[in-house]
């Protein structure tokens, strides 16, 4: 568990349809190889080329649920995380962290969006569960007009932490084949999804 170093800052706290998958041009995956069939399905749905069958949607969600954060990427800790003790080491602002760890430290430990005691594994498992939950809403969108993403939103329910938000979000980027982020928010999901994004298309609305 992370804590602030003594003397540093205080801890702070489906639609149905089509029978075949149309082929779309995708940027080469970051890790090389061909785009997965699930990513091609997301693009087909995102561009309105076709509707996904229930079976195809399940295939997409299984893929997204198990995609995880990119284990080979690194994100800078920066000032907000500086002074946190993580894995026995005091974080400096310039240190680079695997995305899963940076997002966990920021959204679970510091901002307390998840319940107290949530571990890194719990955080990742909660993301998988939200992606696979039939109550979750699913939307495709083009972030800043250039990058296709699948966004999953659901009422946070038992995942609500002291920050007392209403919704949990998972963003998956087709280009990389990994989760981008997962956080909780209180904004109307319609507003949240349209921020900085175009071509927003709901594949399934979240249950209220």
């Amino acid at each position, binding site marked *: 568990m992370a804590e602030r170093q003594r003397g540093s800052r205080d801890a702070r706290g489906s639609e149905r349809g089509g029978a075949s998958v149309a082929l779309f041009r995708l940027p080469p995956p970051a890790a090389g190889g061909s785009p997965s069939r699930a990513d091609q399905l997301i693009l087909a749905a995102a561009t309105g080329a076709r509707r996904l069958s229930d079976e195809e949607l399940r295939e997409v969600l299984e893929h997204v649920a198990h995609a995880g954060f990119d284990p080979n*990427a690194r994100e*800078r800790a920066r*000032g907000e995380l500086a002074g946190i003790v993580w894995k026995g080491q005091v974080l400096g602002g310039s240190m680079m962290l695997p995305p899963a760890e940076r997002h966990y430290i920021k959204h679970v430990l510091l901002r307390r969006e998840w319940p107290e005691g949530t571990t890194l594994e719990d955080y990742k498992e909660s993301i998988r569960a939200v992606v696979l939950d039939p109550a979750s809403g699913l939307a495709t969108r083009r972030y800043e007009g250039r990058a296709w993403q699948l966004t999953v939103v659901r009422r946070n329910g038992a995942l609500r932490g002291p920050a007392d938000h209403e919704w949990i979000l998972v963003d998956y*980027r087709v280009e990389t084949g990994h989760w981008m982020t997962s956080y909780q*928010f209180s904004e109307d999901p319609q507003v*949240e999804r349209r921020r900085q994004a175009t071509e927003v298309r709901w594949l399934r609305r979240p249950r209220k």
Partner: protein
Amino acid sequence: MAATTTEVREKLDLALNALEGELTDLSSILEDQQRGDLPSLERDVRAMEWGQVMGTLRTILDPACRAGQMTPEQVARYRALLVRLKEALPIIERLGFAKPTISLEP
């Protein structure tokens, strides 16, 4: 079940912490971008997290301040953060991050 005063105070403290945290990181994000040392994916992630906090500002902090739900200390801290946010607008513009949609006048 209605939130207790302690829970509301804690929620507002956490929301203020989140706004302060994002403001703290803005300059280093811009510096990295200007040096060509900010991967586009990390930039987009930070833009999304910034947007999350702009939503918190609009749906939690601004209404709570207007409704008199903040302690005097929280009001003072909130007003100071609004000043910092106003000063950071040029950085926000350069990064292409979402602009606040509430009045920044205390």
